[in-house]
């Protein structure tokens, strides 16, 4: 099957030809199969945001290309614009982009640009609001007078309302409290399950991404440093630390226990797994 997104030799240089020239990403090759839940991590400035803005054609590659379902997204202006509706991108701090007089109209902005019928738009707005838990009472309020967390949800709903096949979120939980983070992440998981869409989650939190993603990609200095499922990635803890990344607390505990001589697997990355691993240690101890 053709991957839904394929990236070939992607390089992006900012301010080319000036003293402020900056190579943000370099020679990235990647295939993303349909329906995958992908986690993208990396230190500040490693090029994550630059990379994802290529996937819906907001940035033009300096060299290389991006294929959506096997076709170059930059082949024509129309194609690029079409891809924007298929590949939904939620920016960092998306609440700063709200502009309409009412919540309803803001969520409807994307579908309206798709030139859908009123009825279709209405259906999508309600559905998207449902996914992120925005109650209908808020529909006629001004988005500017809501709380930060609510604004964030509305902004995400604005992208979900386009029913994208690929949903990309750039640090959707930045600056939220733990319960706010948890609920936004579970909204994303629900959308992934319900729609079967491909999801790319950019985050700084190893904890979250290890728990949710099927595949993790680590960016370092504008290149893909590691590309592996969560179960394998954390056994390379030293490497991750050298790239300025945290490892999940459960993995840290497991690694420490190993150092102390206990035969525990290094690929533990959730509290649940850690609990089971420790309990099974006790079982084994009993047996002897």
């Amino acid at each position, binding site marked *: 099957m053709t991957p839904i997104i394929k990236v070939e030799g992607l390089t992006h240089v900012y*301010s080319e030809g000036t003293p402020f020239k900056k190579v943000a990403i370099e020679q990235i090759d990647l295939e993303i199969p349909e329906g995958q839940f992908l986690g993208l991590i990396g230190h500040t400035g490693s090029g994550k945001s630059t990379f994802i803005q290529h996937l819906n054609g907001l940035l033009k590659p300096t060299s290389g290309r991006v294929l959506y379902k096997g076709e170059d997204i930059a082949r024509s202006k129309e194609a690029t614009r079409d891809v924007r509706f298929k590949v939904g991108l939620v920016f960092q701090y998306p609440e700063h982009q709200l502009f309409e007089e009412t919540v309803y109209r803001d969520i409807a902005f994307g579908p309206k640009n798709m030139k859908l019928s009123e009825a279709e738009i209405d259906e999508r707005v309600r559905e998207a609001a449902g996914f992120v838990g925005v109650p209908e009472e808020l529909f006629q309020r001004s988005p500017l007078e809501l709380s930060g967390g609510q604004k964030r949800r509305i902004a995400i709903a604005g992208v979900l309302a386009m029913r994208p096949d690929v949903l990309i979120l750039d640090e959707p939980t930045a600056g939220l409290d733990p319960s706010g983070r948890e609920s936004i992440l579970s909204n994303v998981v629900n959308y992934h399950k319900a729609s079967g869409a491909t999801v790319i989650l950019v985050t700084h939190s190893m904890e979250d991404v290890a728990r949710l993603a099927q595949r993790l990609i680590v960016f370092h200095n504008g290149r893909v440093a590691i590309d592996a499922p969560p179960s394998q990635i954390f056994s390379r803890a030293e490497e991750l630390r050298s790239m300025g990344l945290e490892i999940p607390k459960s993995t840290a505990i497991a690694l420490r226990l190993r150092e102390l001589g206990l035969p525990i697997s290094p690929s533990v990355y959730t509290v649940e797994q850690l609990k089971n691993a420790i309990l099974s240690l006790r079982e084994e101890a009993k047996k002897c």
Partner: protein
Amino acid sequence: MLKDITLGQYFPGNTIVHRLDPRTKLILTVVFIAALFTAKSYISYGIMLLTVAVCIGLSRINLKSIFKGLKPLVFIIILSGLLNLLYTQGKPIVEFWIFTISWEGVRAAVFMILRIMMLITGTFLLTYTTSPIALTDGMEILMNPLKKIKVPVHELAMMMSIALRFIPTLIEETDKIMSAQKARGADFETGKLTDRAKALLPLLVPLFVSAFRRADELATAMECRCYHGDESRTRMKTLKMENIDFAALVLGIMLLAGIIVLSVFGL
């Protein structure tokens, strides 16, 4: 991209011109402009051209960046040259249709073009070699006497430095919001003029909202640090006139005096 527009166009460096006190450079720019408008003869224009060339050389500014700065004004330069060429009376050399071109016309046109180009280059040299903050500081001190007649000099300078400080931030913000709206299918580039004006709404509203939010935050932050205007404020970097500043000023004034003398003698 929007960001590539140079604004404030300061090129950091450490040449003599960069190191001059901003006040010196401001005064010299005024002196230079005065001399430029006094110059009338080939000799005085030659002296002015030489001065500009020496200043460019000393500041090590790339000629390319200077031409880049002149580019947007090419139309005005050519237009004023043409007007001078065609409408100056004198001994005709070519005549066609209703126009006559005279020696005096050619001379006036060349002088006009040179004058405008030197005027622009001179002021560019100021902004290329002086950071905006230093420039506003310099202006504030130079305008200090105006406080006597109740001109809020300090407040004006503060507003100017804040504005300069936030131009790049606002450009960045515009870029970001534009991308975010494009991601939702907004189209800023095609369509009729009215459509395009309407398409700006999703850009302008968030931009204003965030500008006001920033202004609010900045005001709070300034108040938290007990900012209360000019009274007994000291500076981290006090401007100090060095020997080279005085030397430069003397040279500048000699230039102006020389040009005035030349024009008095009709040269």
